[in-house]
Structures are given as structure tokens and as C-alpha cells.
């Protein structure tokens, strides 16, 4: 039974198999001291501690890593990066895991992935983020009618103060289009 469940898990994670290699390189020298865990402000909400996560990365436990919420709970405070006695780029490693989740559109991380992707969609359209448009894109992508309700009170307060608008921020159309395309082309080569 347990084996079958594990197999199913690893099938789901096949898509990310080679993508974990660069993250393994980043944490190769980890000595499992736990300074990262002791420094992490979000550790209380994580299913695996950062220290355990790095071991799982080195053990290639893809299914468990990407089903866990740990990397998505990194708020990029850089305490672990600052304090790691091995000088490992741990915040960058957390980011690299977020990038894998985004590239593969992992359902288990839908909220965060859609949040970041729709932010970038708005930036790609206008060059600068249009906060109102971005939130509308995000709500549409989540397809959960309850999510907008959570943001409605703050949205109203911001609108009353004239702090959010639907006006595109730059006159020039899609000023970052060439940059985005070139980045995509270079990433395909890798």
C-alpha cells in the first residue's frame, strides 16, 4: 500500500527530476547544524523545518519536497543566508524551489504560484505593476469566489484614499516585451 502511494507521488514529481540538481549544488556543503531552522521566522508554520528540507533536497525526495509547504513559506528575510556557518545561499535555494513550482504549475502551490505569475503578467503588460489589475488577474486565476472577499475591505480603503487605480502606469505599450522574450529564449537553451 505504502509503496504504491509513494510511486504515485514520484510520478507526479517526475517533471521536476533534473530541475532539483542546481538546488542540490547550492546546499551540497550543508552540515545539518540547524542554524537556518533556529533563525527562520516562519518555521512555526512549516511542515518540515528548513534543516530537514535541505537534507530532503540532497536525498532527492522530490515528491515530499514539493508537497510540503516549507519553501513556499520562506518570506526572504535572509536571516538563514546571513547566519549559515557554511555560507550557503539558502534564501536563493528557497527561491529556486519556488521557481520549480512555478515552472511546473504545481497544483499544491497554486495560491503562491498564481500570485507571482499574475504579478509578472501585469508587469509584462505595462512595464510597472498595476496593483488593481494584478489583484483582479490573481482572483480570476484562483477561481475561488471567496478570495476577493478577504481583500475587499482593504481594497475599499485604498480606493477611497485614491491609492489604487485602473490606469496603466506607463504610456508606452509593453516596454519590457523584448526583455521578457530574450530571457525566455535564453532559459529554453539551458
Amino acid at each position, binding site marked *: 500500500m505504502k509503496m504504491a502511494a509513494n510511486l504515485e507521488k514520484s510520478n507526479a514529481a517526475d517533471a521536476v527530476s533534473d530541475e532539483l540538481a542546481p538546488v542540490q549544488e547550492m546546499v551540497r556543503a550543508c552540515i545539518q547544524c540547524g542554524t537556518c531552522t533556529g533563525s527562520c521566522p516562519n518555521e*512555526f508554520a512549516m511542515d518540515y523545518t528548513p534543516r530537514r528540507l535541505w537534507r530532503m533536497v540532497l536525498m532527492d525526495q522530490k515528491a515530499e519536497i514539493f508537497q510540503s509547504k516549507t519553501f513556499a513559506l520562506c518570506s526572504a528575510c535572509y536571516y538563514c543566508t546571513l547566519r549559515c556557518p557554511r555560507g550557503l545561499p539558502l534564501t536563493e535555494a528557497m527561491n529556486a524551489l519556488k521557481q520549480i513550482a512555478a515552472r511546473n504549475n504545481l497544483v499544491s502551490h497554486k495560491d503562491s504560484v498564481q500570485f507571482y505569475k499574475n504579478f509578472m503578467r501585469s508587469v509584462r503588460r505595462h512595464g510597472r505593476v498595476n496593483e488593481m489589475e494584478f489583484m483582479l488577474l490573481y482572483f480570476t486565476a484562483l477561481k475561488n469566489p471567496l478570495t476577493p472577499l478577504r481583500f475587499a475591505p482593504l481594497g475599499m480603503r485604498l480606493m477611497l484614499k485614491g491609492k489604487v487605480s485602473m490606469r496603466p502606469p506607463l504610456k*508606452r505599450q509593453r516596454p*519590457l516585451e523584448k*526583455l521578457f522574450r530574450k530571457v525566455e529564449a535564453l532559459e529554453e537553451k539551458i
Partner: protein
Amino acid sequence: MKYQYYPGCSLEGTALEYNLSTQAVMASLGAELVEIEDWTCCGASAAGATSFLLSLALPARNLAIAEKTDDVSDILVPCSACYLNLKKVEEETRSNSDVLAQLNLILQEDQLQLRGRMQVRHFLDVMARDFGPEAIRSNLKRALTDFRIAPYYGCQCLRPYAVFDDPESPRSMEPLIEATGAQVHPWKMGGKCCGASHMNTKMEVGMELVAGILRAAKGADAIVTVCPMCQMNLEAYQQKISHRQNENLTLTILYLSQFIGLALGLTEQQLRLDLNLAVTNSFRRKLG
């Protein structure tokens, strides 16, 4: 003193008061700001969570445009997230010529070139090291002696690059606050995390972190911040957090530029205190 100015997206929207108060303070201290022409988004935390290359290319574009202005090499950045993204390109390209070459391959598409000669400076860095408490004292129009202020630095102006302050125990705001005549609220939460974008995607976690910060600030008249995301997280959810924690955690949250501006004699209208989401009645009464 002259700086190129990168306001960033938040400062055109939800953090407009940070933008206007920074410009007003800089003008009263005699500094000239030149906004980078057609600047674009730095990538915020979203680019780094989707593509590593994009997270460097977006800030690199702005640095390359800034380099076209020959005589000013310092870029003033008020937002800590923008600051770190731009700084990362400054640091990465200095130590790694491969990164610089790859970024130039991308920038070429827009006829831009990055040489790597810009210095990215946070607003707090400029206040603390270029102007310092002396500049505030010599321009002081209104001593704010009745106020006790908790300095909140957040993360990304302190870490990972220790440029102008101690990334573990930051102190750079203290002499500036004291120069306004105010007292510094002693606490250990100045460099702790506000949860960043958790408030949008993992709200329960974000509220827990903010509650800890607001609780530690009890006894202060206000917290001052130097980042639009910290400011929004600390000011916008106080009612909800107080309700959840069953404790009054409401407190005035101002940008450092607004507080210094008051001491320099700028009006509440100039500093746009009306745009803040948390200014308590008792704070207003003290302000008179």
C-alpha cells in the same frame, strides 16, 4: 548632493506618501533628485519566485538606463525590495563577469548596456551616512520631544548585504530619531520579518509575525518604517489582528521620511499623513 531616483511601483500607488515625503525631505535638506527616465518594475519578490534570470534582468535594465546619466552615480531607492533587487545586480555583476555578459545579451535587445558603475543606495543609507543627525539638527523647525518612536528596519535593507548597518542589531535610525528631539523605543524587533507577501497568500502566518512586532512596540507613540511592504503589513490589518489576539494592538505607523519631515517643519499635507492607514487619535492630539 544629487541622486538619481528610482521610486518603484509601490510608490506610485499604495505608498504614494512615502514617495512624496521622501522627495519633500530631500528637497528641504538641499538634495536634488533626478528620476530615472522610463524606469520599469524591479521584479519585486515575484520575479525571483518565477525565474532567476528575469529577477536580475529587470533591475539591470534600470541600472543600465541610469548609467546613461554620466555625472550622478548614486541611485536613491526608498523601497527595500526594489533596493535589494537593484543591489543584487550591482553585487553580482561586480563579482561575476559571466552574469554581466549574460545580462548585456538581454539588454542589447533594447540597445542598452550595463557597465556596472552605479551605486545603489537605500533612503535610510543616504539619511544616515550622507546627511546624518547633524543635518536634521541644523534644519530643525519643530522638536518632537513628546514622542517615543520604535524604529523598524525590516529585512531587505539589512540582509543579505550588510552595507550601512548591523544586519543583526540595526541602529542606524536611532541618531536620526534622536535628532528630531524624540526618544527611541528600545526593542529587539527592528530587524525582524513582517511576513512580506504572506499577508496575501498565507495570511494567518503573516498576521502572527505582525502581531509580535505590534506587541513589542507597546509604549511607543509610533513605529517608523523604511519599506512600503512593511508599512502596509503593519498598518492595514491592525483591527483584524487585535480581534484575533484579543488584545488592542492598534498603533500609528509612519514612514521615517514622514516623521523626519515633521521635524523639518513640513506640514501634514505635504507629508500626506492623510494617506496613512493607521494614525491614532492620540498621536494626532500629540501632534496638535
